[in-house]
């Protein structure tokens, strides 16, 4: 009976409790192997795999994960992140730590999310201003 109750209580966990796993293995010949799967062992076949430049946000490589669950791709010449996208709530991003033999080329960084910083600073300013106004009110009273 207790087992049944426990089992019933655990059921709702099923929908979301699987996470993406993916690894990049250096083949040491200028290529790397990307392996992707869910933690449940299910294949991520069809999921979109991207290599994105850290400096420019450009997509350097994009392909769907095949049935085998692995891809062999060239190691990018500039600093990059790996992104596995298998639908809403199932995205995984990793910094690419496999470097080409001669290291990464230097690329001018253009990837500053101005919108994020601008709205963040604006929000903080409004909150600070609110507390200053309240402080002034207290002082006045």
């Amino acid at each position: 009976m207790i087992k049944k109750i426990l089992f019933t209580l655990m059921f709702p966990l099923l929908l979301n409790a699987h996470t993406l796993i993916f690894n990049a293995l250096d083949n040491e010949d200028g290529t790397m192997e990307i392996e992707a799967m869910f933690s449940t062992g299910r294949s991520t076949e069809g999921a979109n795999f991207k290599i994105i430049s850290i400096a420019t946000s450009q997509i350097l490589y994009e392909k769907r994960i095949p049935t085998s669950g692995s891809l062999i791709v060239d190691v990018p010449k500039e600093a990059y992140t790996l992104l596995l996208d298998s639908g809403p709530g199932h995205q995984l991003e990793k910094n690419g730590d496999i470097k080409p033999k001669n290291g990464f080329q230097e690329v001018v960084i253009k990837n500053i999310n101005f919108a994020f910083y601008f709205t963040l600073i604006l929000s903080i300013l409004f909150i600070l201003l609110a507390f200053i106004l309240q402080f002034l009110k207290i002082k006045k009273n």
Partner: protein
Amino acid sequence: MILENKYIKSLKISHTYLGIFAIFFFYISTFFGTLTVFKPYIATWESPSKHFQVIDKSKINLDIMITKGLKELNNPTNNVTITYPSLTEKALGMRYGFSENVYINPHTNNVLPTNHESQLLSNFFNKMHYDINMSKVGQFLMGITSIVMIFLTISGIYLWLLNRKKRAVISNFWLRWHKDLSLLMLPYIIVFSLTGAVLGIMLSLSSPFAYSASNGIETNMSKIVRPIIFSNPVKIKSENVKATMLSYSRLYDIAKINYPILNISTISLFNWNDKNARIVFRGNLINNRILTSRTNRMNIVLNGETGEVVSKATLDNTHKVSHALSAFYFFHFITDEGILVRLIYLITGIIFAIGLVFGLFVWIEKKIKKENNSYFNIISKISTAFSIGIIPATAFTLCLYWLFPFNLENRDSWIIGGFYSMWSFTFCYSVYKKDSIDAAKDFFYLNAIFLISTVFLHGNTTNLFLWNSFEQSIWDIFYIDLFLLILGIGSAFFAIKMNKIKFLNKFKGY
């Protein structure tokens, strides 16, 4: 007797302070949850490519659409999922494994250009609902809040019964309404606090249970239970022998004849063009939507070559626990329900949110009367920004969505950041204004401006103004625009009349 008094006093204190903690999170969750009830409609409204009429099911040409979709997906033959057009998703969706969806217009049978359409608004509202846009930390916080809500419900009922026993008359205006509204909303509160607790807390903390149940082998609960509950109805391997398939529409008709009460929502293809091809039609039962919601879909499996029925899942051969889980999810997500049930959820959500705010006012009023200091004044300002300021901030988000071009760099950050900036502005403005009721009045004006602008910006961007969607009978888009317009005008009207509403004078001085 003294001990009993102490116990009741402690209970009242716990109810008050835990309530204050829970109100802020649960209010946000309720506000955005109420918007999320309309997620499918918002998702359509924010995708210009899906601004077309809902198609009559008899006019759907499955054969052309699926063939086009498969071509777009590079002709995969296994693990293809097709989402059948419905009231809430008007296009036919197709994906292969975990690929992104390809959408096909059922009127023209053409692939829809959804490149820049990310369903930002509906996903953002949903995220605010379940994790206040704070990922796992937010989800955990929401779970804790839901547990606190369960305690608040039980303690609230107990205190109410105690008052009834003593025949005590509640004279405090806020307390009386907080009690009445909360009691009225009791079934709603129970459903959402229980489901919220399970989804928020149990999802994050399942590993020890999995570890214990598997004798220390596995920490992932899903890995243990998923294969049992969501077992794939098609496990058969391909024979590697080419075969000619029956047409999709013919197979659809066979499925309907053999399972007439199945309301088909998805179709899956396995081993297609092979001797062992299988097509699975999944959906809910027309006569039992509660027990066949998204976690317990019924299905019928056909042989793709011959149309022969391979298997058929019915309610009788699914586990009772699956039924319970299905009902559990049904009341939270109402996935298959139409607009009527969603409108009921909207009204109950609004009443519940008002009940929550009134609970907070009981405490603020008591504290201001007792201590009369500025500390409680700022709490009332924060409450104003939380409860009323969030309304124009959300309307501003809708406005920005249609104001910014779809190809703008970092468009999502501008829109979401805009929401937070406007929300923090409302806090600043509440503090600036001496009386919160005056601030609230201006917020309703702002809300009106944003909502009315949204309707026109939407029309301008999509070339589908209110009158166009009416003429072209695109009812879902028309009603959303009309609703926003009425809400905007109503908001302005409410702001104009605010000072004359006697009831609102209760807010004066906060």
